[in-house]
């Protein structure tokens, strides 16, 4: 691509990003806002791809645009839309003015810094250090190496963040009911799409070691399969009915990672200091557990709460969330969408 056409592409992309962001933020209707937000996310993913960040592009498309958009869409129906207050117009306008000026000042300040204070060669010691140590890391995808090896501690804590969020969501109450059984078109689509998503997830997990991909992208794709099934009417979408097993799956991401780290510590190596010969296998092990945990967590986040148990159905509000709620054999559900 010639430099001129690349520059034109960049300008077009960046203008779309700003326009989409602006319209999503200032639209009068919440629904329109969410849809524009999803479009914004997809265009941003395109920007990541253009900036040679394919791992990030995959994650943004799946999680940032797709999953966040799904969460917002599902929330649209339940949250009251804001009624703009008619009174206090003057004070509101003063606040709006101040905040707008401050935000503009921040953007201006940052723009000035970016323009005027970045002379000289870029600091890339860290990039070079990663490249030098890449062969010791056990994978050949540098982003995976940073995520799972050099800065694996961050990823461990991030999986803990995910766990904390889902535990909070489960503690807040029962989740949304599954949608009604889908019509023939969506049904056919779901039957076709779900296995494809499962295979793609497995592929992304495997290929993450030497090409763009990895646990987060795979987990998000797996969660997408779960969401598609949910939209098609399946209640439990293949999640374990037994509360204890479900908790095991949720905890597995952090658990396997922590177990590997602590085992290495006990064996005399530094925490999360994989021996170079074993690093690839350990990383794959950790990523597999993380994929399952991420998928379960994201899908539970979409469901928005505890899956309905028999006790919930009978109207008993006091049920332990996942504290051994017991099996709930739903006769109509065997993990596949019901035919219409």
């Amino acid at each position, binding site marked *: 691509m010639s430099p001129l056409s690349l520059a034109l592409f960049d300008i077009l992309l960046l203008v779309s990003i700003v326009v989409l962001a602006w319209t999503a933020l200032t639209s009068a209707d919440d629904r329109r806002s969410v849809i524009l937000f999803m479009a914004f996310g997809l265009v941003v993913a395109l920007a990541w791809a253009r900036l040679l960040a394919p791992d990030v592009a995959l994650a943004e498309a799946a999680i940032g645009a797709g999953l966040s958009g799904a969460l917002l869409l599902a929330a649209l129906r339940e949250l009251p839309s804001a009624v703009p207050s008619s009174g206090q117009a003057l004070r509101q306008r003063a606040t709006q003015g101040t905040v707008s000026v401050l935000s503009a000042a921040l953007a201006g*300040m*940052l723009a*000035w*810094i970016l323009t*005027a*204070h*970045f002379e000289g060669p*870029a*600091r*890339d*010691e*860290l990039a070079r*250090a*990663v490249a030098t*140590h890449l062969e010791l890391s056990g994978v050949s995808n540098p982003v995976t190496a940073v995520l799972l*090896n*050099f*800065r*694996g*501690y*961050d990823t*461990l*804590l*991030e999986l*803990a*963040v995910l*766990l*904390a*969020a889902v*535990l*909070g969501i*489960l*503690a*807040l109450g029962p989740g949304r009911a599954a949608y009604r059984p889908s019509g023939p078109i969506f049904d056919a689509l779901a039957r076709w799409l779900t296995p494809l998503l499962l295979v793609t997830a497995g592929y992304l997990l495997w290929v993450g070691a030497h090409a763009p991909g990895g646990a987060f992208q795979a987990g998000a794709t797996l969660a997408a399969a779960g969401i598609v099934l949910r939209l098609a009417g399946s209640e439990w979408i293949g999640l374990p009915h037994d509360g*204890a097993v479900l*908790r*095991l799956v*949720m*905890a597995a991401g*952090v*658990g396997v990672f*922590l177990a590997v*780290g*602590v085992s290495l*510590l006990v064996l005399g*190596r*530094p*925490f*999360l*200091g*994989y021996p170079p010969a074993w690093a690839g296998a350990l990383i794959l092990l950790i990523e597999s557990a993380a994929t399952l945990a991420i998928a379960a967590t994201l899908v539970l986040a979409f469901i928005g709460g505890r899956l309905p148990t028999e006790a919930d159905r009978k109207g008993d509000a*006091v*049920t*332990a*969330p*996942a*504290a*051994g709620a017991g099996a709930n054999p739903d006769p109509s559900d065997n993990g596949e969408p019901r035919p219409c």
Partner: protein
Amino acid sequence: MSEALIWLVAVPLAGALLALLLPRFAFAVVIATGVATTLAAGLLVYGVGTAGTLHYAIGGWSAGLGIALRADGLSALLVTMSSLVLVAGSVYARSYFHREADQARFWPLWLLLWTALNALLLAGDLFNLYVTLELLGLSAVTLTALGGSAEALRAALRYLMVGLLGSMMFLAGVSLIYAGYGTLDMAMLARTVQAGPLTGTALVLMTGGLLLKSALFPLHFWLPPAHASAPAPVSAVLSALVVKAAFYLVLRLWLDVFAGAVTPAGADLLGLLGAGAVLWGSWRALRAERLKLLAAYSTVAQLGYLFMFFPLLQALPPGAARDLAVGGVILLALTHGFAKAGLFLAIGIIQQRSGHDTIRELDGTAQRLPATTFAIALGGMALVGLPPSGAFLGKWQLLAGAIATGQWLWVAVTVAGSLLAAAYTFRVLGHAFGHQAYPGRPVTIAWEEWPALLLTATASIVLGLAGLPLWRLLEVGT
């Protein structure tokens, strides 16, 4: 010895997973985790005291490539405080949550909060700090929401939105730093940071985010509803530890990592906001109708004292006087941590036994719950700053430093704030000692009253008497 650093994070995290998987044994897991973590904290203090600042490179990678943990005297003391407060809170929480279901939800999140606190206090990498801040924020919010009432949910939601805004600003600052310096390691940055527009803007962004999280006036609006409607053990930890963690980060960034980039004007601004916090918080505490709201506003005020130290530290040249001032602010922070935690636990007991925490209707509390009332009195003593509490030494340093540098405003505000604190403490005690006609039961201490008593006793007596060894420990690293 430096492996204690990673054990302090790994043990609570493992405990959280075990508590999640084995809800029947959750309390046993919590106590085991608590004891192990406290032992590790003690080991850390010993290690820092003998060997100086401890470092641990995770994964064995060199600084910059990997993430480093580090502990100096300040971190070691704060980690110890958080371990002791959390153990005490755990013992109390056992009696607070009656239903098995509530306990099953509570313990894993409680231990994740513990993990986040330790990880934050020991972090040596800026982006790692961001992740620990998020973990801390999310677990704190979910614990607040466990209160269940609409009021608690609303407060938790507001807390979450404010926290997210703060974290996002912090991340923006960290991104600027990476763009400008090419590294995220705090030790390396401390050596290479230079004043300039980039560093200044990044510091403003990071500090702004942290000020939101530490509820410095006028960004404190989210704190009173959240701390007042959360379950009592959660309120204790929120006031004593979570907001203190954000303050610790401001201290660390201003005194250590970005020391070359801070300006007197910025320090003065922090001091002024702190003064506002002291006056406004103390005034609102005096006017509060409920005990929990009083304690929450008191937290706002006490944090103001901590921020008033910044202009002093900026104005004092490096030397003995400055070291004493640093010791003062830490001692004040530690005392407030223990005192406020004990106070919230005591209020929880009153709330459970009497069904309410309205101040006007506290008559007979001293008769029915003498130990708890004593705990409140001790806690109040520590908040006012009467000797021999650690707060007395801390405020003394604040006054000494202000007088030495000629900044009389802080003197006036400190005196006024202490008077207001005395007023609201005595108001509570006055009502609590109100006489009820019916004779009370014999004087006993239930086992759930011990944590509150021990915490406030530590604040008001132990910390003051142990001031000197603590001072010496703080000299390591700062």
